[in-house]
């Protein structure tokens, strides 16, 4: 970029090259988004501006409970995912034979997507599936654990997908840390734990929180696993389930969109909290040069 000495004439012409990608997005993304927000301010089928939908959302239990149900599902699973993925990525940082294969397998669910993972779960976690057979054979369980069509079904599905997502991002993040920082800390007398707490973690913490919040964004929108391996009538009746129901069964796009907007608001509040935590500490690059 520094090599360019652009005169303003070219500069303006070049910016026009943005239009082919920008215009379609304005039409199929921004315009509908604005329309959608306007939708929430009308009652289904009526013209006048009203906060009816929002009042409905917060007064009708079935609607307002979705906030709680979604967060109870997503926040604990995200924390668990981060813990598991961090442990795996940190351990797989050393050069180990077959590391590429292990990495690929851990990220594999991400490729498959929630739908296939849900079907795989039905086969694997069903009462007489391999998982329960194995644990009963070991004597850990005496009767099959009910891990499908309830809260835990969706929780497991989110965890499997989330670990894949967080892991794939953490691998790149941890690779970017120059090992000489840790060597320097060790040479100055820090043991493994001190090196981790005082040097390694501070260097990646900002990135870790970023990945965490991206994962929360993705998981707040959980839908297909809540339907297929969850219990969409009660414990996994999350934002998306109710929104889809409003749109596709009652054709009430106004209410459905209201739920989507509130979901976005909850998401931004979560992001705000994460960002607040993240800001208290070193934010910046951890490479030695540049």
């Amino acid at each position, binding site marked *: *970029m520094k*090599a*360019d000495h652009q005169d303003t004439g*070219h500069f303006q012409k*070049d*910016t026009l*090259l*943005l239009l*082919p*990608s*920008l215009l*379609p*997005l304005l039409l*199929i*993304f*921004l315009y*509908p*988004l604005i*329309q*959608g927000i306007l*939708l929430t301010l009308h009652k289904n089928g009526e013209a006048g501006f009203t906060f009816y939908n929002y009042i409905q959302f917060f007064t009708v239990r079935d609607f307002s409970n979705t906030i709680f149900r979604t967060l109870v599902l997503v926040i604990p699973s995200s924390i668990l995912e981060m813990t598991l993925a961090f*442990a*795996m990525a940190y*351990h797989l940082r050393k050069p180990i034979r077959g590391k590429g294969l*292990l990495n690929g*397998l*851990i990220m*594999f669910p991400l*490729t*498959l*997507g929630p*739908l*296939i993972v849900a*079907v*795989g*779960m*039905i*086969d*694997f976690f069903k009462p*007489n*599936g391999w*998982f329960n057979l194995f644990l009963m054979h070991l004597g850990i369980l005496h009767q099959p654990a009910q891990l499908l069509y309830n809260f835990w079904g969706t929780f497991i599905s989110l965890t*499997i997908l989330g670990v894949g997502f967080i892991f794939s991002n953490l691998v790149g993040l941890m690779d970017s840390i120059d090992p000489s920082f840790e060597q320097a800390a060790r040479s100055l007398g820090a043991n493994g734990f001190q090196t981790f707490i005082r040097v390694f973690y501070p260097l990646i913490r900002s990135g870790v929180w970023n990945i965490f919040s991206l994962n929360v*964004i993705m998981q*707040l*929108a959980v*839908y*297909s696993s809540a*339907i*297929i391996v969850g219990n969409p009538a009660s414990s996994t009746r999350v934002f*998306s389930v109710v*929104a*889809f129901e409003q*749109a596709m069964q009652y054709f009430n*796009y106004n209410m459905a*969109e209201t739920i*989507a*907007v509130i*979901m976005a608001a909850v*998401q931004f509040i979560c992001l705000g909290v994460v960002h607040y935590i993240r800001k208290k500490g070193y934010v910046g690059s951890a490479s030695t040069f540049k």
Partner: protein
Amino acid sequence: MHAGSRTVRTHRYKWRQILWNFLKALPFWLLIGGFILIILGMTVTVFLSAFSTHWFGTVLPAGFTFSWFTKAWSEYDIWLYFKLSLETTFIATAISLVLSVPGAYVFARRDFPLKSFLLGFYQLPFMLPELAYALPVAAIFYKLGLAETFTGLIIVQLLVGIPFSMVILIPFIEALDPRLEIAAQSLGADRLRMFSRIVVPQLIPGITASAINIFIRMFGAFVVILLISGPKMQTLNVMVFSVLSATGSQPQPMLDSLTLSLMLPLLLFTFLSMWVSRRLQRRVGK
């Protein structure tokens, strides 16, 4: 004597060190092993179940048969949805790339006012819940008559395709050496020829890799398509979802055969993407 005592000390140290390292690593390996076993277990059971005659409470199915698989394909017209998915995804990938390359070039090479703001705009679809814009898109499409049409499917794929292409193409172009472009211009190439003869050819490896990733991403696109697709204009995964969410009336091997039909192309594309990126790395000399 002296040397002997030293060796003993070393051995004891090494033995303790090895034991300690093993104990330290054990929980990690159990975790990684357990996670991978669950993933492999899930994948393998889908395969086994799709081709099983009966499988109930035993370690392995009672017998194997192709009949569920062929039955699933004929009863659900899988080929129809499969073709539709491939066609729309392929066309939408191509359109996304063609529309995004010029913009990505501008982002990688030029500075202009509101640059970071615009970059943020391209990433906004990933930061917002898909439902927030998919619902009004569906409402508008139904009003315009675009819903439940081939064109409509392609257009909504661009919602994922364009932002995703931009995000992966910009770093690719930033990595190209700008001096080649300046050299081309100093040799008398005008801007169009500079772009088509210098920039695009260098980008082809990057575009190929991105195209496969965009393709995989779109093949898995779900929310918008579910909202605007009719019974006959569905992609494969929306169709599979409808069958799965409807009732538990279908026998499990049937559902597994459907899922397998969805999984095989994804596996194929993933291997393709890995193969291409490995070849690319070799070409770059990494």
